[in-house]
């Protein structure tokens, strides 16, 4: 379990993270979302004791992570796949990490197998692709078999097979009862992986809730209608209080209607004897909900600075 309480980090007069409070629970994958520069990495660093908070606190398993003399059995973390020495082999890199924490050398072989790098274990890391470095970083995080795992943008540079693999891995780690905290600036990455979301923008908390609830916050629910007599239909719907946006190429006869539910639109069309070729309710996607909410926060804060 990760608990963040009123966490704040300022660099000079620039505030990177402001009074952030949330909890990441075990047994679930929790996504940590925000646009670039929202303060995700700074938050992760403070949780890991790399950066000292200006105010507030962060604990992992009820303790300050820095109070552990050795960390790998408490938290596994991948912050940046580039944080390795290119001149070493993957095996040497992991062996040094394992040894520093008194982890038996067989674990190195196990995690290399697990992430699919057994073949490349003796080659220099400098020759690895970004996807391979991500796998190496995940291997390092798994070394100590920790109850808490944190990954910062883990699928960057991975091929589609790698993305599928890593999603299954995260789901499995959570199913084993571990706390899995996963940062990303891409909502689509979370759609298939996360149970819970922590969303931040400009260093402030926007939402901390289950994924479905967050998706339901998207306000732009709309209905797409198609009709040969689209212009007439548009006039009728506007009169009934809806707002209309033409969809597709001009003359395609498709409208996006907001402000009226699908059954009401169907009834109105029937009254006017207008034939419909399409009537689809479109719920806002996670991506849209995310964009909408973070854009709001960015605008709001940008306004404050002026």
């Amino acid at each position, binding site marked *: 379990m990760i608990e963040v309480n009123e966490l704040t980090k300022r660099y000079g007069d620039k505030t990177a993270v402001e009074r952030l409070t949330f909890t990441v629970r075990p047994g679930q994958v929790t996504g940590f979302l925000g646009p670039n520069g929202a303060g995700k990495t700074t938050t992760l*660093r403070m949780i*890991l*004791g*790399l*950066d*000292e908070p200006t105010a507030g606190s962060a604990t992992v398993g009820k303790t300050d*992570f*820095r*109070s*552990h*003399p*050795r*960390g*790998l*059995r*408490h*938290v596994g*973390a991948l*912050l*940046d796949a*580039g*944080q*390795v*020495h*290119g*001149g*070493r*082999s993957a095996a*040497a*890199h992991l*062996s*040094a*990490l394992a*040894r*520093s*924490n*008194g*982890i*038996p050398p067989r*674990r190195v072989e*196990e995690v290399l197998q*697990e992430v699919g790098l057994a073949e490349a274990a003796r080659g220099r890391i400098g020759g690895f692709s970004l996807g391979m470095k991500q796998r190496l970083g995940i291997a*390092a995080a*798994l070394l*100590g*078999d920790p109850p808490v795992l944190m990954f910062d943008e883990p699928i960057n540079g991975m091929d589609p097979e790698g993305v599928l693999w890593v999603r299954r891995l995260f789901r499995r780690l959570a199913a*084993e009862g571990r706390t899995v905290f996963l940062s990303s600036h891409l909502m689509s990455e979370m759609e298939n992986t996360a149970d819970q979301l922590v969303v931040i923008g400009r260093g402030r908390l926007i939402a901390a809730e289950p994924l479905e609830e967050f998706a339901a916050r998207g306000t732009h629910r709309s209905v797409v209608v198609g009709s040969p007599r689209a212009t007439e239909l548009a006039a009728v719907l506007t009169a009934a209080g809806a707002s209309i946006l033409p969809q597709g190429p001009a003359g395609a006869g498709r409208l996006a209607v907001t402000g009226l539910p699908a059954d009401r639109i169907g009834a109105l069309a029937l009254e006017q004897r207008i034939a419909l070729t399409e009537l689809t309710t479109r719920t806002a996607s996670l991506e849209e909900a995310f964009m909408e909410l973070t854009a709001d926060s960015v605008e709001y804060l940008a306004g404050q600075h002026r």
Partner: protein
Amino acid sequence: MTTLTSPSPARFRDLIAAEWIKTRSLRSTWWTIALVGLFVIGSAAVAALADSHNLAAARTTPSGPADFRPFDAFPQPGYMTLMLVAGSVGAITVVSEYSSGLIRTTTVAVPARGSVILAKATVVAALWMAVGTVVATGSFLVSQAILDAQHAGVSITHPGVPRALVASALLAPVCALIGLGLGVLIRHSAATMATCAFTLLMLPTVFSQSKRWSADVNHTMVVAAWQRLVQNWAPEPGSRMFSATVPGSWTVYGLWPLIAVVVAVLVVRGRDV
């Protein structure tokens, strides 16, 4: 997934072993050591050959036992290069972690930051102690073998030799630890290298031996201490130059690396990684 059931041990020797794995797994470590070793021993051979030519040209028949010629066995160009290389490699052990970001991976694995620095210092000191011993012994033996042709070689037990040998062997670990300390303080590769070269080799030349205060500063420098310890003659009584003392020079050898490591340990504790 297998479970690690054993509790988390926090043994310092594991950190030393981990740092040793890091050091030996870089090919550049071994290349650097081999090249600097060859260069220093080669420079002793060159110095001894030149001296031996002079002796042959002078055709002086040696009267009595030969004198130890310390700067043939431990020539300045060779040992100043050794200082520079040891200092740089000591610095690189930490600077390379900062520049790649590996230091964050290391710090998450071992949140006890001071212990990491101490383990690095231990490995760096031990490695360069070994290199220094081999190189100093090698350059002494090679130079004496060459001087033997002119009956000017001395044995390793000759008066003045053991001190010069120990001081020359210790020069490498002393400089490597200073480099490590500077690396932790500065963190940027180029700036660290420049500061390291400046501190070890350029700064001492700023202070002359002819004024009391200036000589005092000069004598606190590692290179001056090494010269005093290798030199086997006492300062001339009538000389207007101020000379360093032998105990003072040993103290300089001890204090520089000690201060470097202590400052490094204190600095990493309070700084964001």
